[in-house]
């Protein structure tokens, strides 16, 4: 058994990219774990060079000193003290960083709640009401295609609708519901939440749909036969069994919104502070240690949220 699997594993495009059969035969004599390394190694190296080591640098640099124009590689807590400036002195008022994080968490919560609601019902419709596989595929694709197009364009797309002279305002004025254009439609918290929901409901739909299609339809029939109402089936059968998808989708949406600075920037008219935007602002001011310190804080909070959520479900098992 071992050897059969081992031999099959030699078929790596990496090993034999030259298409040279002689080399493939020779490779068959390599030890299995060496082959695995050749296959998985390149991807591991990319993550090492462009993800893991950079994260380490973020942590290191967050403890460096800085002046107006450069990094000073000497230990300093200035990145952090600058960030938390006034947090104790101003009590009981909240300092800037605390306010910013509260605002970010609020946006996060709103977007999470709305995307969960939308994502759940869209996935429910696709998984339980669309019976034909072809239709299921087609409609899922319809939900996926926007994800393959540009986020910025999907943000800009709201301008002609929500702007001062946009469709919504002119429509409302025509019907006489309002006399003056509503100003809070664009470049506001409203438009930020709207755009985030628009962009990222996809991340909720996919994992929830995945969990739902795995639910044995017999369970639902059993619940029905045992006299459960539609609502009871939903609450006691479908929601618990969709939980892994719900949790994974929530992790995606929450981490995206926590670190977002582009949507909040563009749709907030560059006026709304958020956790990700602080980092961007610090980088633009070339205050790298302060930017790194903020990144570490953001990372810690994101990590905390994920740990709490993954308590509920074993992610690895669900993929």
């Amino acid at each position, binding site marked *: 058994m071992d050897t059969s699997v081992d031999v099959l594993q030699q078929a790596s495009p990496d090993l034999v990219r030259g298409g040279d*059969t002689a080399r493939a035969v020779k490779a068959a004599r390599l030890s299995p774990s060496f082959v695995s390394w050749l296959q998985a190694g390149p*991807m591991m190296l990319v993550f090492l060079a462009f993800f893991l080591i950079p994260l380490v640098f973020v942590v290191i640099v967050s403890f460096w000193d800085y002046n107006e124009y450069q990094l000073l590689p000497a230990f300093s807590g200035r990145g952090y003290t600058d960030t938390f400036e006034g947090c104790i002195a101003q009590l009981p008022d909240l300092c800037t960083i605390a306010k910013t994080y509260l605002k970010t968490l609020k946006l996060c919560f709103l977007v999470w709640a709305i995307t969960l609601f939308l994502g759940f019902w869209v996935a429910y419709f696709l998984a339980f009401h669309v019976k034909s596989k072809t239709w299921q595929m087609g409609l899922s694709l319809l939900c996926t295609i926007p994800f393959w197009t540009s986020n910025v*364009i999907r943000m800009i797309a709201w301008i002609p609708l929500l702007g001062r002279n946009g469709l919504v305002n002119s429509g409302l004025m025509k019907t006489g519901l309002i006399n003056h254009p509503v100003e809070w439609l664009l470049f506001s918290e409203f438009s930020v939440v709207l755009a985030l929901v628009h962009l990222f409901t996809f991340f909720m739909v996919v994992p929830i749909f995945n969990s739902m299609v795995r639910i044995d339809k017999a369970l639902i029939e059993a619940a029905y036969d045992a006299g459960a109402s539609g609502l009871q089936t939903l609450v006691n059968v479908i929601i618990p069994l969709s939980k892994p998808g719900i949790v994974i989708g929530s992790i995606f949406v929450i981490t995206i919104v926590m670190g977002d600075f582009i949507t909040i920037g563009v749709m907030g008219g560059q006026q709304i502070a958020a956790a990700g935007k602080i980092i961007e602002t610090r980088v633009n001011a070339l205050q790298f240690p302060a930017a*790194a310190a903020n990144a570490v804080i953001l990372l810690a909070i994101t990590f905390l949220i994920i740990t709490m959520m993954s308590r509920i479900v074993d992610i*690895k098992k669900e993929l």
Partner: protein
Amino acid sequence: MKEGRPRSFYVLAIFFAAYVLFLYGPMIAIYVLSFQGPQGGLTFPMNGVSTFWIAKLFQGTGIVDLGAAFRRSLLLGVIVMIVTVVLSVAAGMAFRRRFRAQSILFYSAIASLIVPSIITSLGISLEFRIVDDLIKAHWNENFETSMSLLTSGLGAHLTWTLPFGLLIMFAIFNRFDPRLEEAARDLGATPWQAFRHVVLPIILPSVIGIGLFGFTLSWDELARSSQAIGAVNTLPLDLQGLTTTVTNPDIYALGTVISAVSFTVIALALGTIHVLNRRQAAKGSDAGQGLV
């Protein structure tokens, strides 16, 4: 369906239709608006219909050098696509068997997917700055920077596309029947032949899917590029820069052109996948049709 649909079907069907309208409506609005007449503004109603703004875009007048940004993004997208496909298929093969550090790679991929992009981007930029400083201090005082489109920029994009590639490979091999390969081996196929003539033809539609993700995610990538791309801009970065100074529909025209590329790639990929699936369904797998 003869048995009649429950009422909840119709309610949810309307809900779903509304969601799709919500997804596509605004996008369609700007595609339409990019065909404004020369006097047209940023909002409806249309002031005539013309290709004035799109033509203006191609003349290169007005906004930054978009042609160059366009070519850079295209180049990067194609390279990211190729690297993503090759590395994902290779790593996917490795994951069919236990190996040491398997879970490290798995968790790296998942973490890379969910750690906020700005942090990854900042980390890469710090890494390259520090390397630059070291080179300047020890080897070459006149060295400028190692950060560029195809070093830090490529790496940044791969941290975003590779996790998707790997997850798609997991999905493929979850439903893959290993007996097909065993049969090939019993018939005397070398490992490479078994891969080339059995495994690859079967997984090809999904591999094209990986390529689709690789290209489109890179083509539209913004957050990770923001700090890690070096001196030059990609197309989405230029587009984002324009959002703060929007005064006329050329930004919509640019959006339409960028989307046209995305839609072309999506259509090509989905078309190819469709044809391959049809062929597989009609002929069975074409595995083993040729020998090396």
